[in-house]
């Protein structure tokens, strides 16, 4: 949308027509419904059903203006198929590239799974309110993730890792269905080995290779030694998980507004308009997807 247009003009330009005078943020925000092309730079299998897809905006201005917070998401566009909201799984410290962890779940993600490095996708965003990393700074962080919930918190984990000295003790509790569903395991194990993080992996259904813990994430949580005065909790996982994890965090005396929950809803437009992601009086897409537990308690129908 350009201001010099006659009033009442709707205009969406193809990229080749994008005026050279437009800044990256004008391009991203002027018409936030409009995706910008990004090229897939790499794709690799994380599990049988999940791929890590790395992308890079073609336009340099967009690439520089697209700066996200851990916990934010974007709308991934495959024209003809549609759009899907996807958490950004890379840290903002990784510049110039955006990584997404894509589970083959719906039509857009299935179509993406059949694409290859070099192909072009559309991206708009970043959207939403992520984790308040500035508040976390100087404190301990307890991160609890289940299944695909690891995707948004990996952005936070990588961010913390890249600024490791800014944070206190960081504990990751990550539950998966089976050992082969565990994502980023090598990376996490390496960091555990280097004593960067405490790491507790659990699975619901072990196999012959598994010598780790079996059961729900709340079990290792219960054993943790936590200083509630300086600990922030982070939760992301399937809808059923929140209540139980929050309960343990509360038992550990972590304060209501020190527990951060990353919610999943159908974020269609990403900018607080379309209504699909409403929870009570809030829009998951702009007021969240990260809410602290105090806020969540104040939202009808959040948990």
């Amino acid at each position, binding site marked *: 949308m350009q201001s010099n247009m006659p009033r009442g003009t709707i205009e969406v330009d193809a990229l080749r027509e994008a005026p050279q005078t437009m800044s990256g943020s004008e391009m991203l925000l002027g018409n936030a419904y409009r995706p910008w092309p990004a090229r897939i730079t790499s794709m690799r299998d994380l599990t049988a059903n999940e791929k890590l897809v790395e992308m890079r905006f073609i336009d340099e201005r967009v690439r520089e203006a697209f700066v996200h917070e851990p916990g934010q998401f974007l709308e991934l566009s*495959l024209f*003809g*198929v*549609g*759009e*899907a909201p996807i958490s950004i799984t890379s840290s903002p410290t990784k510049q110039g590239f955006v990584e997404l962890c894509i589970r083959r779940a*719906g*039509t*857009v993600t*299935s*179509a993406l799974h*059949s*694409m290859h490095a070099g192909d072009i996708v559309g991206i708009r965003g970043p959207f939403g309110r992520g984790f308040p990393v500035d508040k976390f700074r100087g404190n301990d962080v307890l991160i609890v993730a289940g299944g695909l919930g690891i995707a948004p918190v990996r952005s936070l984990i990588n961010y913390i890792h890249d600024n490791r000295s800014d944070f206190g003790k960081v504990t990751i509790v990550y539950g998966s269905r089976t050992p082969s569903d565990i994502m980023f395991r090598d990376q996490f194990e390496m960091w555990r080995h280097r004593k960067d993080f405490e790491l507790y992996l659990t699975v619901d259904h072990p196999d012959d290779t598994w010598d780790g813990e079996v059961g729900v994430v709340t079990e290792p949580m219960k054993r943790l030694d936590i200083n509630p005065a300086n600990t922030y909790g982070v939760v992301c996982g399937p809808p059923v998980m929140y209540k139980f994890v929050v309960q343990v965090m509360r038992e550990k005396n972590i304060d209501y507004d020190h527990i951060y929950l990353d919610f999943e809803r159908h974020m269609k437009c990403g900018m607080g308009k379309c209504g699909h992601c409403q929870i009570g009086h809030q829009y998951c897409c702009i007021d969240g997807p990260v809410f602290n537990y105090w806020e969540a308690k104040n939202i009808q129908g959040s948990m």
Partner: protein
Amino acid sequence: MGAFSLITDAERRVPRVVVVGLASCFGCQIQITNAEPYLMQILGQIDLQYWQLVTSEDMPDEFDVAIIEGAVTTREAEQTVRAVRERAAHVMAIGACATTAGVTGMAAPGLGGRVGEVYEGAAPESSGELIEPRPVSAVIEVDSEVLCCPIDPMDFVAALQRVLFGSNRLPDTRTLCSDCKRNETECFYNDATLCLGLVTRAGCGARCVNLGRPCNGCAGLSPDANVEAARMACATYGVDVAAFDKALEMFNQVNPALAESGDE
């Protein structure tokens, strides 16, 4: 999931399509031909291997997408759709007969006696072994549907494209009245006239109402239809509830949801 992976995956094969006709008037297959201006474009996107309406050849053994018109009314048809399901990556049911059993479904209650009314004695052998008419989805899993009697040619084109290229668009399950409000057509109930829009699945854009006729329910009962509340609405607006139930039979005779609520 669509068959679109066929054209996006490495082998990039043009999907092989067959069109199968069961018990119906074949009007929905005719409707496909009414997408005339676009037929060549559509045929360019698929490998049409068999179209029952226009060929006397046999159906090939291998294909990717099967489009089925008509209700399952015989054991033979039942076997046909099962065989289709085994071979097809995607099965699309088109038209009221295939999606709701349609008008043929009206024969379901007391089928045996009805045969006697039509034929003297048993049905001729060429009719096959008659069973209570049912939609294709009552026999096999159906991946997508094009609703209404008959189908709209462009609805078909759009549905086929969703199969070929994939789409995250969810099928509407809401009922019709919202469309009349968008179209700003007058509600028949204001005038105590029966209309099945209260419980019929949206998607047609309330075409009949736009032409001045009440909805006769050809898109079938919405899976989220609230038949009990609709009966209450009929009573409130002076429409005979029994007439409402009777009218629903034309396209929903064999809908199990209706049978349940009708037994109450």
